[in-house]
């Protein structure tokens, strides 16, 4: 009996939270956009959210590409198929690792920072004070951050994949001695622009939307104390990572599973 009561209360809480999050989203994006004011604010946020995540994305992309080439080579060389190293690295990066790893890193690097920043703005009454100055904080604070996240993350994912493929080249070709021509040409013969690259970009746009939505909402909805903000930041990382992995499965099934 108690179990059912808990379940019911939990479900209601979740639904209520989802409702609040949807309200926030609509308030920020749908209601009366003001592009002239939005664009400079969004550029500033792209700097914070995107440019400052660039280093971690490039470094991880490089290493993941290198590790994949190393692992792939040792397996493929047994079958004399080391020529397929190129497509293996490229396909796994473009279809999966690019969007997913970028999303996870983005959630940890930029998502948590967004939540903490908005939470602190709430705690220091900056959001309230905007409201009292007759400026809608949803449009002034939340909307530029949402747009910046949605724009930046797919860009980061593209860079991640490109750097990863170069990293794979570095290890596979320059170090392990796979033929450079076959690395590229078999990759080119296998990778399809629409099926692989575009689907990867679509994935990362979906992830970007979900992560930024969760991050901004968790900050906006946080309890404005140090404890509340730290909880909100943790929840941002946990929820958005889980959401990314879950959505990845659904998207992969839709894109590649059913031919």
């Amino acid at each position, binding site marked *: 009996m108690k179990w059912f009561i808990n379940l019911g209360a939990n479900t209601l809480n979740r639904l209520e939270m989802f409702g609040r999050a949807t309200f926030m989203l609509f308030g920020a994006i749908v209601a009366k956009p003001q592009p002239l004011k939005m664009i400079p604010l969004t550029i500033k946020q792209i700097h914070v959210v995107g*440019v400052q995540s660039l280093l971690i994305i490039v470094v991880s992309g490089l290493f993941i590409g290198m590790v994949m080439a190393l692992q792939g080579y040792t397996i493929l060389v047994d079958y004399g198929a080391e020529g397929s190293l190129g497509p293996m690295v490229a396909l796994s990066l473009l279809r999966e690792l690019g969007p997913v790893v970028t999303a996870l890193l983005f959630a940890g690097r930029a998502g948590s920072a967004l939540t903490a920043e908005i939470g602190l703005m709430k705690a220091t009454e900056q959001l309230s004070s905007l409201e009292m100055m007759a400026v809608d904080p949803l449009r002034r604070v939340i909307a530029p951050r949402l747009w910046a996240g949605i724009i930046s993350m797919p860009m980061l994912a593209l860079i991640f994949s490109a750097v990863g493929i170069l990293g794979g080249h570095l290890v596979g070709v320059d170090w392990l001695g796979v033929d450079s021509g076959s690395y590229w040409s078999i990759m080119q013969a296998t*990778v*399809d622009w629409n099926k692989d690259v575009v689907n990867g970009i679509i994935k990362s746009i979906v992830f970007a939307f979900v992560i930024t939505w969760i991050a901004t909402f968790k900050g906006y909805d946080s309890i404005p104390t140090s404890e509340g903000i730290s909880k909100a930041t943790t929840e941002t990382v946990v929820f958005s990572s889980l959401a990314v992995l879950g959505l990845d499965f659904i998207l992969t099934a839709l894109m590649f599973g059913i031919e």
Partner: protein
Amino acid sequence: MKSKKAELLVGVFVALTIAAGLMLALNVANQSMASSEDSYILYAKFDNIGGLKVRSAVKVGGVTVGRVDNITLSNSDFTPLVTMSISTEFNQFPETSSVSILTSGLLGEQYIGFQPGFAIDGVENLAQGDYIEDTKSALVLEDLIGQFLFSSNDG
């Protein structure tokens, strides 16, 4: 001044993304925009194309000279019609050339093997829109086994 720096860095970020996108498009997915201009189209009819796919390679002695553009079924005689785009770099193939569908390695991808014919006087070179008459279909394992069984019964 501070916002100028942010704008600059965002500009660099966008440029990097475009570079990455171009690299993926040209080097990885081979969406070369030039290819459609600097190539000519040839057609070939096969009885059976096996596992040939769009974008499979067309090779002469192992050298890729073009790609399969399109595969359709010819409506008049119900045979597969393969459209190939061949780079204009290689435009000296005589009309007597033949094509066959081959497999790279035991389990590899299928591709079109292009066998240039003899250039005798009076034989013109293949040009845009020409059909290659001499074609050999893909080997289908089931057919092969069938043939083997029948021939051994007869013998």
